[in-house]
């Protein structure tokens, strides 16, 4: 078995996803030499190969385009496994088939991620909304969760840097008008917004001005959503052409993904990518300095893998960054103590704690007869309601952001597959064929057309506050094919979140009434992703926004990293990614995480100078 020691670099980064790829690029532009260790496959597959995998998958999940095959559930015999929707559906509580082990009493953690070059950013949706000022002060303003050790003003210039690195299409004036957050003088998004959909216009005309929550009386206003999706050529990538598959993959690469930054970083000649190199622990010296990242190598991406570990080594550099994902960063740090007997970055005991997501309240309905919205066209979402994300109500219940979908009932029930089959089989799994009709010919075409063109979907991203009981630990029984313990998850949703769901449900009722739409939202009492609140059952979906696990704070006793994402315990170890976020607000977190990581690069460059 090969044991290798890498040449010395300025910075060694574990993970080539959103944070890792962008940091490598920015460091290389500053003349620094960087090694990026990627747990999964590298850049050997062509983009069109991933698109073809998506097209040929019967289950078009967020993981469908990416290896290892998400349809074969055998994480114990997979070299770099990850959680998948396939496993959630089939066996969320069976660690023999599902990557996560859940602790007794845990609710299912319903979000997933990828492990390959570009990371989970390969399947991100592209939403790039800034956090509000109060989102950084959830504890001090509303007595909930945790505060950040920095504020919006500290991050504002880095938001701009991140938006230009990604290529965000947005409308500054519109965002300022709905959020009240100031942008830098003279600042403009790299390009104007992606056109809102036909359905956005129909819904917006009826929804604007509505009061959706009595404790948030500001009128609702549907506005375009800033997104990392080209509305004009940018970075040698063309504009969005409405492929309606942003998650999991944009076939024309109008949507930014971290492979863009990674390829540019490697083109500088100062960045080296080592693929299929799984960092499993951190090496430290007596004084607390990190001396290397230990990694395991493998060759087989198959499931089950024919071979396991084929080598390994220690990557050395002056500065180290773990940017492996919120869950995997915690896993590496926790495994360090198991592997070396020496704890890493965990003097606070907070590594793995404060795991968060955006639990999503999903609602769907049918617009009135004669009022089509023509979904299944355009990006997955082009508009949302930003006006109700903050207010004194956050003392009592979680805030939410409303995202209006462009893909009908695809997310809620898997349409158009389900409705189309209902009229073939005389079933009513969609709720759109209550007469259980079996149709063929033009009557079939017209019936299915009538349903599909009137489908409406809204998603409420409910803020989840930091809770130390929600955590990642190491399984003491289950490993991957390389022998490293897998994550064990403890997850629940507080009454604060549940009250946010109740508010979202009431808002849905008002939206449907305002639109004249029929609410088709289905709640399943017996589902694992169900909870009770106020005498009702709610189902939550995963937002795909895994945060927490190594939160930043003001002191070593209350956090794992400081406001620059540098660990309190190791002067040359940084933890980058959504794991550093002490609160998640109500908007997709990727843009904020990238802005924080751009700020971290400045800190690293200052230390290397």
């Amino acid at each position, binding site marked *: 078995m090969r044991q290798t020691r890498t040449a010395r670099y300025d910075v060694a980064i574990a993970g080539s996803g959103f944070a890792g790829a962008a940091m490598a690029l920015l460091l290389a532009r500053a003349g620094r030499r960087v090694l990026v260790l990627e747990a999964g496959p590298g850049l050997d597959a062509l983009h069109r190969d991933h698109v073809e995998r998506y097209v040929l998958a019967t289950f078009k999940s967020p993981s469908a385009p990416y290896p290892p095959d998400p349809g074969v559930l055998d994480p114990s015999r997979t070299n770099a496994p990850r959680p998948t929707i396939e496993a959630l559906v089939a066996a969320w509580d069976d660690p023999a088939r599902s990557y996560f082990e859940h602790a007794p009493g845990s609710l299912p953690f319903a979000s997933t991620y990828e492990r390959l070059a570009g990371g989970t950013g390969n399947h991100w949706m592209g939403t790039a909304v800034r956090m509000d000022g109060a989102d950084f002060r959830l504890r001090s303003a509303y007595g909930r969760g945790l505060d950040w050790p920095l504020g919006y003003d500290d991050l504002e210039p880095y938001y701009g840097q991140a938006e230009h690195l990604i290529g965000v299409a947005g409308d500054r004036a519109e965002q300022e008008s709905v959020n009240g957050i100031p942008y830098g003088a003279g600042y403009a998004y790299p390009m104007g917004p992606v056109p809102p959909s036909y359905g956005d216009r129909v819904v917006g005309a009826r929804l604007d001005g509505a009061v959706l929550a009595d404790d948030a009386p500001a009128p609702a206003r549907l506005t375009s959503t800033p997104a990392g999706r080209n509305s004009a050529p940018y970075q040698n990538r063309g504009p969005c052409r409405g492929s309606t598959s942003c998650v999991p993959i944009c076939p024309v690469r109008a949507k930014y993904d971290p492979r863009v930054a990674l390829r540019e970083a490697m083109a500088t000649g100062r960045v080296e990518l080592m693929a299929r190199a799984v960092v499993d622990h951190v090496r430290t010296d007596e004084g607390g300095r990190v001396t290397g990242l230990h990694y395991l190598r493998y060759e087989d991406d198959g499931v089950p893998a024919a071979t396991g570990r084929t080598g390994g080594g220690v990557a050395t550099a002056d500065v180290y960054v773990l940017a492996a994902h919120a869950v995997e960063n915690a896993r590496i740090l926790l495994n360090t103590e198991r592997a070396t007997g020496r704890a890493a970055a965990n003097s606070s005991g907070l590594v793995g704690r404060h795991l968060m997501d955006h639990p999503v309240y999903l609602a769907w309905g049918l617009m009135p007869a004669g009022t089509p919205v023509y979904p299944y066209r355009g990006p997955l979402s082009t508009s949302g309601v930003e006006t109700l994300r903050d207010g004194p109500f956050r003392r009592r219940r979680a805030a939410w952001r409303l995202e209006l979908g462009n893909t009908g009932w695809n997310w809620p029930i898997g349409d158009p597959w389900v409705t189309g089959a209902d009229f073939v089989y005389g079933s009513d799994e969609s709720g759109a064929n209550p007469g259980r009709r079996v149709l063929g010919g033009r009557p079939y075409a*017209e019936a299915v057309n009538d349903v599909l063109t009137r489908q409406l979907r809204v998603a409420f991203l409910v803020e989840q506050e930091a809770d130390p009981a929600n955590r990642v630990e190491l399984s003491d029984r289950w490993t991957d094919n390389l022998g490293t313990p897998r994550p064990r998850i403890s997850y629940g949703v507080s009454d604060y979140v549940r009250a946010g769901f109740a508010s979202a449900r009431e808002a849905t009722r008002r939206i449907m009434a305002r639109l004249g739409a029929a609410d088709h939202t289905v709640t399943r009492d017996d589902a694992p992703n169900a909870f009770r609140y106020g005498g009702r059952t709610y189902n939550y979906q995963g937002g795909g926004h895994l945060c927490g696990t190594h939160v930043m704070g003001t002191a070593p006793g209350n956090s794992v990293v400081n406001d620059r994402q540098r660990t309190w315990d190791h002067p040359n170890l940084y933890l980058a990614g959504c794991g550093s976020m002490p609160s998640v607000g109500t908007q997709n977190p990727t843009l904020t995480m990238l802005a924080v990581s751009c700020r971290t690069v400045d800190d690293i460059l200052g230390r290397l100078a």
Partner: protein
Amino acid sequence: MTLPRRSILQSAGAAGSLLLVGGLPVWARGEQPPDEPAPPAYLRLSAALIGADPARLEPEARAGEVALADTFHALCREAAPDATAALLAAWREAAPRDGPAPGGAAEAGAAGHLLTGGGRPREGGIGAMARLTMLMWLYGVWYGETEAARVPDSAGVVGPGHRTDLVVSVRAYRNGWIWRLAQARPMGVAGAPGEWAETPPGLDEFLDGA
């Protein structure tokens, strides 16, 4: 767990298995000409099942590409030769000569005859092969597993090697008619920038090219 795509897509757990027909995965078979082309009646009944103009059902083929009707028909024959022959015979009986005019009551009646029995999904080989044919044109997917699960009688029609759900080919998916019924494009297929902001062409234009 209640998560999306549960019903017709319950084959997710088996997605790693390959349906090998003639020693090739299905999607590779979509690139290989079958032993014999589909009879014209197969194309006509296919169009009738989803209410499309037969002249528009088959996408234009570039050099070296196999007609979808040929691929779909070959799959049906390999899965259930007798039932496929029975389907064609039943179509000829219900729609003599060249078949009914597209979009007319006679066409709907003929399609209904193949698909239904007493208001329910027709059992037996004719119903099974009609549905599998219809679903291939709608989604580009061979739904052998779904068919056997939804209509238990069909398990005796479709051979065990074909009781699985798989996308037939990239072309078959991209030609899926369900997207036209939504006046849209298949997810994953690019259109024109900004077209989603406009009113789409009418359903008739998608079905008939009028």
